[in-house]
């Protein structure tokens, strides 16, 4: 399956996941993170050699593992929404817990990665590449932390009031966190 095939899907009933308020946030966050990415690219353009040289010191394995962890958590959370719609609240809750645990694993791995880099002497003010590395991953980590709060709200929603919209809110936020990480992964770890 490719991304292109998605747009030509047969006509389906239109449904706005979560609510407009959340999408104001998601689209605005896209713009804000987009600005960070463009500013990063402009700096990279100015110091291309330094960025490629510094990039070698990042652990690609950790980056890949963290991407896989977040993708798995997104899958769990997306399944949770589908299960909620089907009325299987018990299983949906398990999926949400699984997604949240993946988020925690992501944070632990990130903390390990940071401490390893700091031990190697690559700190925040070391050079511009590492400045962006800590800044982008740090802001993203803050979004992960808030995402865990959102998943927690979804979990309690599934226990008590069971409104699909509230579960969708947590899920949409969490996918945004996943998506931003995919871009950060490409820009910081992989591109040359």
């Amino acid at each position, binding site marked *: 399956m490719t991304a292109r095939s998605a747009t030509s899907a047969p006509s389906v009933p239109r449904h706005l996941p979560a609510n407009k308020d959340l999408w104001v*946030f998601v689209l605005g966050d896209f713009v804000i993170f987009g600005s960070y990415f463009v500013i990063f690219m402009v700096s990279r353009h100015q110091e291309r050699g330094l960025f490629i040289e510094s990039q070698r010191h990042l652990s690609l394995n950790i980056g890949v593992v963290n991407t896989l962890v977040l993708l798995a958590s997104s899958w769990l959370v997306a399944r949770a929404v589908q299960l909620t719609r089907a009325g299987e609240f018990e299983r949906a809750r398990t999926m949400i817990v699984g997604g949240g645990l993946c988020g925690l694993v992501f944070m632990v791995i990130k903390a390990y990665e940071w401490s390893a880099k700091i031990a190697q002497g690559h700190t*925040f003010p070391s050079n511009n590449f590492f*400045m962006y590395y800590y800044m982008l991953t740090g802001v993203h980590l803050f979004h992960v932390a808030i995402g865990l709060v959102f998943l927690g709200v979804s979990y309690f929603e599934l226990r008590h009031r069971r409104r699909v919209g509230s579960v969708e809110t947590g899920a949409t936020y969490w996918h945004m966190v996943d998506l931003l990480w995919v871009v950060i992964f490409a820009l910081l770890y992989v591109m040359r």
Partner: protein
Amino acid sequence: MTVAPVWTAPAWTRKPKIDQWIAWWTIPVFYNIFGLIFVVLTRVMPPPRPDITQTQIVQFFVDHSLTIRIGFALLMFFIGFASVANGLIALQMKRMSVSPVFAYAYIGALVVGGLPGCLIPAFAFVAAALRPDRDPQIMVMLYDWCLLSFVGSLGCFCTQNMVLALAIFLDRNDVLPKWLAYMSIWMIVTELLASPVFVFRSGPLAWNGSISFYLGTVVFVVWEFCMIRLLYTAIEKQSPNEQIQD
């Protein structure tokens, strides 16, 4: 309630919600003067560069001494109106279906925030502008003092935005829309990204940086504009007879 016969108040004082309307009007006025003070007069926004020499810093104060002093003289008066804006927002927060804890925390956080965020920077610049013949080392310190304190007073505004966002999220009376709460999360992120100003003297995360200053300021201006607009709607929608629990 009827007005006492001994003293008849003018008709405008009997307008419903008159006190909130007066408080509301101080906010756009205050922020326009705020812009005049910080952008036009005192040159704190956009901030001067952190990576200039001692001589250039002294020259900056010599060149702008008069406007810095005029600007901050205005600030010394108008800063008081910040508490009117906070009082109005706190009142609207008290209309929400949540405990007034957040409303009082909002006032508390901003009472604190006004000092490191506004007045302390002002005094550092004024002290430098009043006597540009001070030891140049001291001039450089006052320069850093003002701009770091101005851009880098983080926690007060994180707390302010956190309690505001929580109050809006938990509110079931729909006093302010939920998307404003989400915007307050951006404000917290903005403060987080202002924290590197204490580390970097140039680049996007310095106090005049594209991320730490410009992006943050754009978010702040958008937030403030929405807040002013939404407060207007909130007051307008409020029933004059609504009882707010004390």
